[in-house]
């Protein structure tokens, strides 16, 4: 056989990468990142709301790349915990939310 599942996967992946690099998926990526922000904020602890509100799209989609992040100076303390607060891990929970099995 000339083709296999791996070859088909490679062809599809290359097509996707080319479309992403050309910016054809930027609108969809922005939409997805907005969903990521919503989920991340949902997992965020709230006292003053400063951390939750700092979760945002930090780099809008461009040529298939974008970035979501928490810009609060307390972001790492909230993610990993410290002597004074537990490990809330909102970023890790968000990643797992989107990794969960789709059944």
């Amino acid at each position, binding site marked *: 056989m000339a083709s296999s599942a791996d070859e088909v996967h490679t062809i599809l992946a290359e097509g996707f990468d080319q479309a992403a690099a050309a910016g054809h998926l930027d609108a969809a990526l922005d939409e997805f990142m907005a969903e990521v922000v919503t989920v991340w904020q949902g997992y965020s602890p709230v006292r003053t709301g400063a951390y939750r509100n700092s979760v945002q799209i930090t780099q809008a989609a461009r040529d298939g790349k974008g970035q979501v992040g928490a810009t609060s100076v307390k972001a790492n303390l909230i993610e990993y915990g*410290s002597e004074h607060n537990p490990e809330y891990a909102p970023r*890790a929970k968000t990643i797992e939310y989107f990794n969960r099995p789709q059944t």
Partner: protein
Amino acid sequence: MTVDFALYAADDVQTAIVAWLTPLRRTGFERTAGDPLPSCVVELVAGTESVGQSFSDPVVSVHTFCDKSLGAPAARDECAKTHNRMLLLFDEHEITIGTRVVGIDYLEVVESPRWEYYSDNILRKVARYRLGLPYVPNI
């Protein structure tokens, strides 16, 4: 009154990893002020589970705490031991807790060990791992 339970479920990953690291050093579910150093804490931070596939994929954080007065190199070496012990689970697929054996299908390093501030007197590194735990009969 009787209450029914599922016959199969995944083992508790926190208990398993605490048992795995305890031969190395004092390890627990949480840290209390004044606990001896070095020590480790295992926290369950996230994860997924598929009942249909009878499989659980929890993500745990492993914190290694060291006395800052002993210096960063000593802390670095202690933290390396923790990570090396965890990496052994890539080849060792069982953790024995008393008479019970917990099966580990796979280990992934989600985040390599990294320095994260904990307090002015304690140095800490945190690493995160994903483990595959199959459902097993409840005993």
